[in-house]
């Protein structure tokens, strides 16, 4: 029964990692942009939610209604007027620019909100759980996070493969020049993609803030697992990212069950093993 519990908790943890990773996966899949500031944007969203919650007295879940559109706009403007200028044959400029943004974000947040650790409380929901058996209880909050993660990936998958906008995304991602010849405005498409990625980041940020404490400097720690989930799943594949997150979560949970010292290590080992046998991840979308 211990092991059932371990796997279940690991899968739920994977939902959280997948949510951290989806934004990264989108950015890389479409723009080939590696966003070093991804974790800091998640924390930025947490703070935006904090401001909304404390100033309007809303519940954290409802704050999503304001935070998601806000991050959408921030994402659009950021890509359109800054990051688009850095994209090109050289992979280094966007890396450096996002690295710089990471430092700026951390320090601005520190200046504005101080170093106090914060958390958004969802009241009784924080510790609510569904008891399956004596040995197995599932927290309501982790379950909501997991279901949201699956729903986000499902929604994005629909957007990408069933809509005209999705076609434009994929076309621009595959061949920018030809897409432009077909009348696609690349900068607008990239900006939209970043906006959508930031909307997902907003959701991740709010859930992070409800799950545990955050302060201006915790962002980078959230980046690593996101990267690993993306790589395990295969670059550009959204379902792959979800699978990657779950694999990572279960690996860590199993490792921890053996010895808590092995928790993080096991995740990294699984990541390396997959990299050795499937260098392009489990479900790579494109061949390039």
């Amino acid at each position, binding site marked *: 029964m*211990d092991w059932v*519990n*371990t796997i279940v*908790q*690991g899968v739920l*943890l994977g939902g*959280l*990692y997948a949510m951290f990773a989806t934004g990264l996966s989108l950015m890389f899949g479409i723009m080939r942009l590696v966003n070093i500031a991804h974790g800091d944007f998640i924390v930025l969203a947490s703070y935006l939610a904090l401001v909304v919650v404390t100033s309007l007295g809303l519940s954290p879940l409802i704050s999503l209604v304001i935070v998601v559109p806000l991050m959408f706009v921030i994402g659009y403007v950021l890509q359109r007027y800054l990051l688009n200028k850095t994209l090109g044959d050289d992979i280094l400029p966007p890396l450096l620019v996002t690295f710089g943004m990471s430092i700026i974000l951390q320090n601005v947040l*520190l200046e504005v909100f*101080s*170093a*106090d*650790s*914060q*958390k958004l*409380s969802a*009241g*009784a929901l*924080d*510790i*609510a*759980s569904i*008891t399956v058996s004596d*040995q197995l*209880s*599932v*927290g*309501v*909050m*982790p379950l909501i996070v997991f279901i949201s993660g699956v729903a986000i990936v499902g929604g994005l998958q629909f957007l990408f493969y069933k809509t005209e906008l999705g076609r434009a995304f994929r076309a621009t991602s595959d061949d920018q020049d030809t897409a432009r010849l077909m009348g696609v405005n690349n900068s607008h498409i990239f900006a939209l993609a970043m906006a959508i990625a930031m909307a997902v980041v907003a959701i991740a940020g709010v859930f992070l803030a409800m*799950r*545990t*404490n*955050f*302060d201006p*400097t*915790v962002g980078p*720690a959230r980046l690593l697992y996101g990267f690993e989930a993306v790589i395990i799943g295969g670059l550009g594949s959204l379902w792959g990212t979800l699978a990657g997150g779950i694999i990572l*979560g279960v690996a*860590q*949970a199993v490792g*921890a*069950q053996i*010895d*808590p*010292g092995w*928790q*993080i290590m096991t995740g990294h080992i699984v990541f390396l093993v997959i990299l050795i046998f499937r260098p392009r991840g489990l479900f790579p979308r494109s061949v390039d």
Partner: protein
Amino acid sequence: MKDNNNKRRLANGLSRRNFLKTSGGLVAGAALVGGLGSAPAFAKQRVIKFGYVTPQTGPLAPFAEADNFILNGVREKLKNGIQIGSRTYPVEIIVKDSQSNPNRAAEVANELILSDEVDLMLVSSTPETTNPVSDQCEINEVPCISTVAPWQPWFFTRGGKPETGFEWTYHFFWGLEDVVENYTNMWDSLNTNKVVAGLFPNDGDGNAWGHKELGFPPVLAKKGFTLVDPGRFQSLTDDFSAQISAYKNADAEIVTGVVIPPDMTTFWSQAKQQGFNPKVASIGKGILFPSSVESLGQAAHNLSTEVWWSPNHPFNSSLTGQSAREIATGYTQSTGKQWTPPLGFTHALFELAVDIMQRVDSLGEAEAIRDALLATELDTVVGPISWKNGPVKNVAKTPLVGGQWRQGGDFMYDLVITNNQTAPMIPVASDMQPLS
């Protein structure tokens, strides 16, 4: 702000003398007239310089939150200078931010020693800050007072030998033995099955607390407690299911550990979600500050921790005469924030600095200051301090008691003292209560 300006000037290549001229400007105008011509003449217009290294930014910043409040009070108190012998010298406190980074702490300590030529170094807040600064002072033979780090990680981690000790660096705080003592006293006052769940991360504190010979395990065994320790884990982890199921299997009714605040929140929420409900939880570090406790929501009521200092401690400041209560109230009035334990210790640090300088015969010799330090017998706002009867030569111990975070006071959570067996002069406010 001021130290930033000074740094910039130095970086721009102005000579040290010009720098001294600038700081000399703070001194009475007449002092400038003769002082700048030659170094010996200037020496007569000396300023007493305290260097203070503290983590004002970065993850350790909550420790330094009360700095400005304390410094403003101390500067106001010292505006007329300190009398040494027949002369009165102006006092300058040069504050440097360690940015929560040990390397940076060593670097700014070096600046304070070599460029600013401070007379006495003060340092506070966790071994990451106190140790590198103390090391620099020891090498450069500058007297240094350090605080807010349990004495073992300050003394032994720096390679201290109990027989010889250090020459220039001194520390005042409590030690791990006091934490163990207080925690077990608190647990003994409740009816439990004496099975203790240990939550020790793989960091300096976690390894020290969980150490098989020097940490909790031997003391717990001696006192009849059974420890369930699943092993060291990485801080900032997102999942404690493995630990929780191990504790549940062993039917642990007591939880202890030393975890960072985000981990405490994750662990405690998951424990509740997964149906692990211990009777008592005594945690170091993770629930030190009110903001971390508040982030646990309603679930933090009656969590217990060690209490370094509180407004209820029956001590007064030797510098301002204020009681512990008055300092805490003053802090809340001026900042709108709840008191935190470092408030008392930062204040006491400056009490010691002033007291020591007042007992120095003449300014300019590090040995004289060190000797005055060694002769200290001062009743501070954190208790009586003397280096004559510490556990090792360089350590003075302050009293430690145990307490619980309770709802229903002036703030969302108030830290209430519930056990004083180790320091009976500090009054108990309430009996120990089990977690609901």
